[in-house]
Structure formats: C-alpha cells, structure tokens
C-alpha cells in the first residue's frame, strides 16, 4: 500500500473536520457540567438524567416515533405498489407521465409540499394532529421508496414470476411468494429511508401538525429559539448514537451476507 502523500492527508483531514467537528463539539458539550453551553465546567452526565425526567421531550419523542413508524410503513406499501406497476405494468396510456410525476416530489421544495398539504387539510376540514403529519410524511417519503424499489425491480428476472405462474400461482400469490421475498432487502431499505426522513423532518411537520402533536424536531427547534440548553445537546447525542449504530449494523449485515453468498457460490463451483 502506498502511504498517503501530505496533500492527500491534508485533504482527508480537512474534509472530515468539516463534516464532523460540529457533531464532535455537540457530543462533548452534552457531557458539560455547566448550564452554559459554551463554557466547559467539567464532565457530567447529569443532562442525560434531566432529559429522561423532561416529560415534554419524551412526549415529543413518542409522537415522532409513532409518526415515523406509521408513515414509513404506509409509504413503503404505496411506494412498492407504485414501483411495481411502473416497472411491470407494461405500456399503458400516460406511463411516462406517471413515472415522471412520482419522482417530482423528490425535487419539490419542502416548503411548497408543506403549504399545499396544509391547504388541503384545511380545505377538507381535517383536524391537524398526528394523523395529518403521518399523511404528509407518507406523501413525501413514498417517492423515495418507489425509487429504491423500482431500481431493484428493473434488474429482477421476470422469468421467476413466470415460473411461479407456471407452477400454479395466481398473480397475487406469485407476488407474495416469489417477488416480495426476493425484493425484500430493497423494500426494507426503502422503509428505513422513509423512517429516517420522517424522523428528522421539520418543515413539513410544522406545516401540518396541530397543537396536540409536537414532533421532536419541532420541539428542539422551538427550544433552541429560547437558547441552546445542554439537555438538547444530550438529546442530539443520543440521536447521533442511534443513527450510527443503525447504519453500522445495516452495512455489516449486508456485507456479511454478500461474503457468505460469494463463498458458497465458489464452493458450489469447486464441487461441480
């Protein structure tokens, strides 16, 4: 292996410093003894204790979690269905238009999505709360799911479905017993994507929520406007930890599955 040249070393340091210094500072100050965020007064975990006793934050976390689970599940179902039809549905009138339209929310400014949803909810007289936030999050995360799932479906060997039909499956059974298990990894990663998108959304949630349902990002944002408290730092650190563990686990699992499959294929080829 070549050693890093000084230029590459500097680039690497600068890049990672740029990305991670803010987070590192946040994590360090979450263990600060002092109530003043920017003054270091010794190590302490007392803010984590404070956090657990803060009912408002716990409520917000609970709302966020519920919204994220429901909306990502809904978005996964709808997004997978949409992807299936767009990839498999053959040529029907307006197919190109539809596939263009399903990706449009990806580039749509969130403010506009939020505003239009707000107008819709007011228009149909829906009380704003957890339910409306779930609907709104489903709307904007569904297109991400359908992008992920359709890219998997495009490489899916169609003859597998035909084989299932040939062996006596109805089209619905073929989907449930063959297609779905095979595309499951894509569906799951679509769900995870939708989940994280919902977890940290501030803009759309603040347009569509009501007084009864304050999500964590909204809570943090409004708390920070009154001044950053060490509690918020602690909360953010916990979220960072959660995401890190999730990402590392997911990549380890996929990597190990890939390595194992490769080894087994080689073993089969040798045995032949």
């Amino acid at each position, binding site marked *: 292996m070549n050693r890093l040249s000084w230029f590459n070393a500097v680039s690497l340091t600068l890049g990672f410093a740029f990305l991670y210094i803010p987070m590192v500072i946040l994590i360090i100050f979450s263990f600060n003894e002092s109530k003043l965020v920017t003054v270091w007064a010794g190590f302490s975990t007392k803010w984590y204790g404070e956090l657990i006793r803060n009912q408002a934050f716990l409520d917000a976390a609970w709302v966020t979690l519920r919204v994220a689970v429901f909306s990502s599940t809904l978005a996964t179902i709808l997004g997978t269905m949409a992807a299936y039809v767009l990839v498999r549905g053959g040529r029907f009138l307006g197919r190109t238009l539809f596939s263009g339209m399903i990706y449009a929310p990806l580039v749509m400014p969130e403010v506009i999505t939020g505003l239009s949803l707000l107008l819709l909810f007011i228009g149909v007289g829906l009380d704003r709360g957890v339910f409306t936030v779930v609907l709104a999050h489903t709307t904007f995360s569904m297109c991400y799911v359908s992008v992920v799932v359709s890219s998997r479906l495009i490489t899916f060997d169609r003859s597998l479905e*035909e*084989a299932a039909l040939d*062996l*006596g499956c109805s089209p619905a059974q073929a989907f449930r*017993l063959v297609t779905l298990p095979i595309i499951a990894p894509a569906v799951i990663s679509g769900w995870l994507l939708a989940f994280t998108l919902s977890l940290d959304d501030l803009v759309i949630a603040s347009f569509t929520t009501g007084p009864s349902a304050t999500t964590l990002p909204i809570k943090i944002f409004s708390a920070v406007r009154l001044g950053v408290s060490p509690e918020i730092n602690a909360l953010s650190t916990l979220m960072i930890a959660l995401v890190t563990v999730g990402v590392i686990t997911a990549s380890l699992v996929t990597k190990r599955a890939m390595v194992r499959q490769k080894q087994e294929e080689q073993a*089969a080829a040798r045995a032949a």
Partner: protein
Amino acid sequence: MIQFRNVTKRFGQFTAIDDLSIDIFEREFFALLGPSGCGKTTMMRMLAGFETPTEGVILLSGQDIDPIPPNKRAVNMMFQSYALFPHLSVWENIAFGLKRAKMPKQDLKERVEEMLRLTRLEQFAHRKPHQISGGQRQRVALARSLAKAPKLLLLDEPLGALDKKLRQDTQFELMDIQEKTGTTFVIVTHDQEEAMTVASRVAVMDHGRIVQADTPAKIYETPNSVYVADFIGDVNIIEGRATPNDGETYRIDWAEGQEPLTATSAHPFEKGQACHFAIRPEKVTISSERPADAANAVQGKVHDIAYLGNLSTYHVELANGTIMKAQSANTRRISRRSYTWEDPVWLSWTATAGVLLAD
C-alpha cells in the same frame, strides 16, 4: 395432443408466428429448431400461456387453451435461465408447484423425494440454488417442472448454459426421464445436434413458419428445402438444371464443360427446371483415381484440409472454382494420410446419395 390451427402472432408490426399449423402427439419428444428470432420461443410461450395468439387457435387435448391462464394449464415449463427461486431451498423449489396444488403433506413429501431421486439430487435437497453448480441447478429446474406431472413439459433452451461435455450427458438423461415419465416434451433449441440427439421429431423453423417437421433421420437425409439442408449439418449445394432420364433418375447440368450429374428424386422435376443438388460431405468419397463404377465423379484438387481427429474434411476445388467438401474417417494415422494440399483427386458418389431440391 396439441394442435396449432393457423396460428399467427404479431408484436406490433413484427410477425413472430406466421399462419402456422402443426400437430404434436402424445408422448412425443418434439424439438423446435431454428436460428434466434425464428419464432420458436414465441410458440413455446403461447403454449405456456405467457403470450396469446393474434389469430388462430391452439388446442390441447381438443380444448382451446386461449382462455386458460398459465397457472391453470396442465403445462409446465423449464426456463432458459432456470428461474429457480433464490430464497427457497432445492426441496422447497421442487415442492413449490405441489403446494399450490394443495397436495396432502405426506404425498407431497413422497413426490418431492421421488423427483430428487429421479434427478439424483438427494444430497442437495437443503441447499439454496446459489450453493449448487450449474448442472445441478439445471436438474432442479427439471425436477421442479416435472413434479406436477404435467401433460406437457416445455423446455426453453434447457442446456444452453452448460458446457459441452455436461450438455451431452444431460441430453441422454433428459431422454431417459422422458421415457420414464411418459410426458410429452417440447424442447426449443438453436443447437441442431441437440435437437437431433434428443427429439423423436424435429420441426425446423424460419421466420415464423415451420419449414419441415419430421424425424431427425428424415430431416437430415431428405430435407425438403435448401434452407433445411443448409441449417442441419454440413452440406454441398450445387445449382443446376434438371432433365428427366427414364425412370426416377434425373440428369443435372451444373457447369459449362462438366459432365452432368445423375441423381434420383422422389418428387418430379420438369425438363430444364432450376434445381439445387444437396449432398452431405460424408457421402462423398475421395480417391486419387477415378472409380470405375461411380454414378457421379468430378475432378479437382485439395484446397484445404480440416482435421477433426476422428474425421477429416477435405475442401476440394473443382475445375470451375466450386469448392466441394468430402469427409472421410481417419482410419490411419495422420502421417500416413493419402492426400495433401494441392493433390489432384476424384470425388464420387452414388445416384441416391444426395437429394434434388427445387428453388
């Protein structure tokens, strides 16, 4: 058992199957042979139910199959890519169709074991498709499609992905299994050797039509057209004009200043009608002297020799520049070969060795 009645299939402007009628009989091993794009796969997909004919009907045991969806047909297919379900084990793959048919558990178990025995896969039952080799995957695909004991089994280029040695072994295995199970097999292939080996009847296809459907021997020995003669095996084709002699023989004038050829033909030619004379290289004898009693003999010199180990094919250039191929068995060692490049030789054959074909 299967009847195609004036079946036409169009994809937009493209006609894949053109007014085709053919019967396939019970317990037959029927091969559809042709170059890619000739419509053979389309025919198979229509039988399986993945395509519907644009015109005409397909009858299976006297019943129009058009309204029956693929999952309700007593027809199973072995796919070119095998299409094994990657998330299921070998055992579950084979049991898949039986489970859909709601077969009782004990019967299902017995049937799967029977299929595993038939395809010699017992020790791989609990492996996943990616844990076994290509040849084993191919046998799983076969076992899976046979498990439901279909009336008709369709095989789409089943051996395409195997190497030559394995392919030959598998061909004989296929024939064995077909005999044992008594299922009607329809195989699609572009490999003429494979079709000739396995099938009891071969249909040669071109541009959505069946040019000739007959036993392998008849297809080879008496092709009905230049296309079939040329597609199956190696052949010499000589263009000329036929003139009836007395009886069944014809005189063929084929080149300026050359002795006319003599050949028999089952169907009549008019005087002066343009014809193609087709003869297989192995039916042409090569010799250094003119054989005394040969019905046909032409002179030339050796232009090229293809040494195939057991056989040699001599490319002989005739006086008018035509290249004719003659094949002979290498009964002696190569160092003792009688002819070499540029040697003058005689090619001869009997009156019945070739076939006379109209345009």
